[in-house]
């Protein structure tokens, strides 16, 4: 090789001692033209499909855009005015009723409370979603549900203080019983203690505190005033936040060696999954009323929250069970071999891996749940879908059909798409390259 080379180099007159400047790639292999060629017209079949679908898209846009954008009316007092102004969509209804679509009948001078809650929600989620934030923020995350409840519903500050007190009381019962008996019994005793507090003493204690210390707090807002996207968020976020821990417990319980725990978990999961959400909502709105004696006010939104959370947790449990099942047996055995007990191995070996595997399924359940909240309109709660009907029944807006669902759909899309993109980012971040 080197011989040949030296031989030829001696025979030619000129040798370039530096490389030529790089030329851009040929026009048909780069830039938009190449992209179009490669992706849209690479074979004759592709070309036909591109032309057909391109035509359909153009037609759809040509038909929709004038109605949706160019001829749309954004400011008018009624549909009749809209029709006089222009021929397109009448988004004036969204404009005029924006507050109702967002907050329902929430008192307008208190809008800052749900708005503040909404932004605080991101602060609360932040330490769970980004690991480079100070860990102390997790305390805020833990306190957020109570804070959100207080901000949205208002009431004396004592009710929140006493809830914290109840949790502390539950914790001490747990500590006390765990010094006498095993942990499982202690957990149940702690939960029972907290429930007992709420059933028997809480309301009276709040009354007592109010009478002794005065009613410091926020102006109370009753549940019936909640509506629009505020209701969607209250139901959706509560369901999402509540269903994940419950789902994990149920999934672990389902794999438990203890027959009673296993039976309860399997029974619960299969029962809930065997019943449509709308049936559970009807149970919440209709049937529970018959069980409870007349005169008891058991808040309809609370009933819905419980049902939605239970419903989502059953699905969550199955998603996480999938993650647990996908873990190779060796991981469990390795944890055992290291001498870890059940709680240690679950916390440090099993769950971190199982949850990572389950992320797409978990987010899928979240998104599904978030959209399922619109079902509450069927039991007369005025979520964004439910509140459209009274708006359309106003003679000013009667005849409006598409504008309101388009608006609601857009908002839903923004949130669901964000969740989905975030989960993809999260998966990539947690991807440690181990594929089983």
């Amino acid at each position: 090789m080197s011989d040949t080379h030296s031989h030829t180099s001696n025979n030619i007159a000129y040798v370039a001692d530096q490389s030529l400047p790089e030329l851009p790639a040929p026009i048909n292999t780069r830039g938009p033209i190449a992209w179009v060629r490669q992706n849209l017209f690479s074979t004759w079949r592709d070309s036909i499909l591109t032309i057909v679908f391109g035509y359909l898209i153009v037609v759809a846009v040509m038909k929709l855009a004038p109605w949706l954008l160019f001829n749309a009316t954004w400011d008018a007092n009624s549909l009749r005015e809209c029709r006089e102004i222009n021929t397109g969509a009448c988004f004036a209804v969204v404009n005029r009723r924006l507050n109702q679509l967002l907050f329902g009948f929430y008192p307008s001078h208190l809008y800052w409370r749900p708005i503040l809650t909404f932004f605080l929600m991101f602060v609360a989620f932040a330490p769970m979603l980004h690991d480079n934030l100070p860990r102390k923020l997790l305390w805020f995350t833990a306190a957020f549900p109570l804070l959100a409840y207080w901000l949205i519903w208002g009431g004396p500050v004592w009710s929140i203080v006493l809830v914290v007190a109840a949790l502390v009381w539950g914790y001490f019962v747990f500590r006390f019983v765990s010094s006498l008996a095993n942990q499982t019994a202690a957990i149940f005793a702690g939960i029972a203690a907290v429930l007992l507090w709420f059933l028997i003493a809480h309301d009276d204690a709040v009354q007592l505190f109010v009478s002794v210390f005065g009613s410091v707090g926020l102006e109370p807002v009753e549940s019936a005033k909640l509506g629009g996207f505020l209701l969607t968020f209250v139901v959706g976020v509560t369901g999402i936040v509540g269903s994940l821990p419950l789902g994990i417990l149920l999934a672990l319980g389902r794999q438990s060696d203890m027959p009673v725990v296993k039976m309860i978990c399997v029974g619960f999961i299969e029962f809930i999954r065997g019943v449509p959400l709308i049936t559970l909502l009807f149970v919440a709105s209709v049937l529970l009323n018959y069980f409870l004696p007349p005169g008891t006010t058991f808040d309809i939104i609370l009933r819905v929250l419980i049902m939605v959370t239970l419903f989502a947790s059953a699905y969550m449990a199955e998603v996480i069970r999938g993650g647990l099942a996908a873990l190779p047996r060796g991981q469990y055995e390795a944890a055992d071999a290291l001498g870890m007990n059940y709680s240690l191995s679950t916390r440090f070996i099993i769950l971190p891996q199982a949850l990572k595997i389950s992320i797409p399924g978990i987010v899928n359940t979240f998104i599904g749940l978030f959209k399922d909240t619109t079902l509450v309109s069927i039991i007369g709660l005025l979520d964004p879908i439910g509140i459209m009907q009274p708006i359309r029944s106003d003679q000013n807006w009667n005849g409006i059909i598409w504008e309101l669902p388009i608006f609601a759909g857009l908002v839903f899309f923004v949130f669901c798409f964000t969740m989905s993109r975030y989960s993809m980012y999260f998966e990539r971040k947690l991807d440690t390259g181990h594929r089983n």
Partner: protein
Amino acid sequence: MKTKILSLALGTAALAFGATAASAATLDDVKNKGFIQCGVSTGVPGFAFTDDSGDWQGFDPAFCRAMAAAVFGDPKAVKFTPTTGKTRFTALASGEVDVLARNTTRTFSRDADLKFTFAAPNYYDGQGFMVRKSIGVDSATALDGATICIQTGTTTELNLADFFRANNMKYEPVPIETNAEAQEKYLANACDVYTTDASGLAATRAAFEAPAEHIILPEIISKEPLAPLVRHGDEQWADIMSWTLYALITAEEKGITAANADEMAASSSDPETKRLLGSEDELGVKLGLDKAWALNAIKAGGNYGEIFAKYIGKDTPVALERGLNALYKEGGLMYSPPFN
């Protein structure tokens, strides 16, 4: 499992604490609460809707406000619970609402079987048909084979089936849930005919871009006396509901309006007007209310005619004629027993 335990626990707790509340009369409960919980629909044009500021308005909420004024002297002492066709009766039966004013048809089975007590009808409606003019039908008896948009869970379903069977015709139902859905389906030609109460048809047609292209057929195939209702078994509360309505009707008959009620109470020489408005005798006390109950109810939103004109009358977009709902003196069916 968990729900069962929870509801059991709550139920027992509630039994222990709420047993006394359960046996009290509705009026006492309402007075303790400080407001009337009133079930309305989730939206029927003219009859119940929310205005720009988020308040419930319409023919039905106006009646609830009149009742609140009768009980508390304050038309604002009322809270509204939107109910759907499916949840309305359980909401009332379970005590979630104190009175249901939700354009509900009084029928035998609802009265006797579901155990409700109805007031006199406050709106006499009837089921009609709306079709596009272009299909060239001018009578409901020519609708053989039509596809019909029909609201589920209402009396209209049964009426429709009866009418077509009686006339030996066939139809294909397109079930819909709400009036807005019906409008959309009907305008998109998913059904040839939209059938519901004639008042609803008129309101729907008024909202179309080209109302003149649609006609409401002359046949009214059913009696739909719409009335407010309460639970069986509390006569006092039922009386308050019934006589509040009668007070509004009598007020129209006697020419008492929201504007002149105070003046009439002070200066009228008609004995029945005086009894009604509490300037003579104390009728309200016999209902467990104060003597100005009817005066307050009338001042809340006006007499029956004023409420009708404000929300569904011919100057509104719903544009309903009084028809059967005129006073008996003017050829209608609105007839109040005397206040004696």
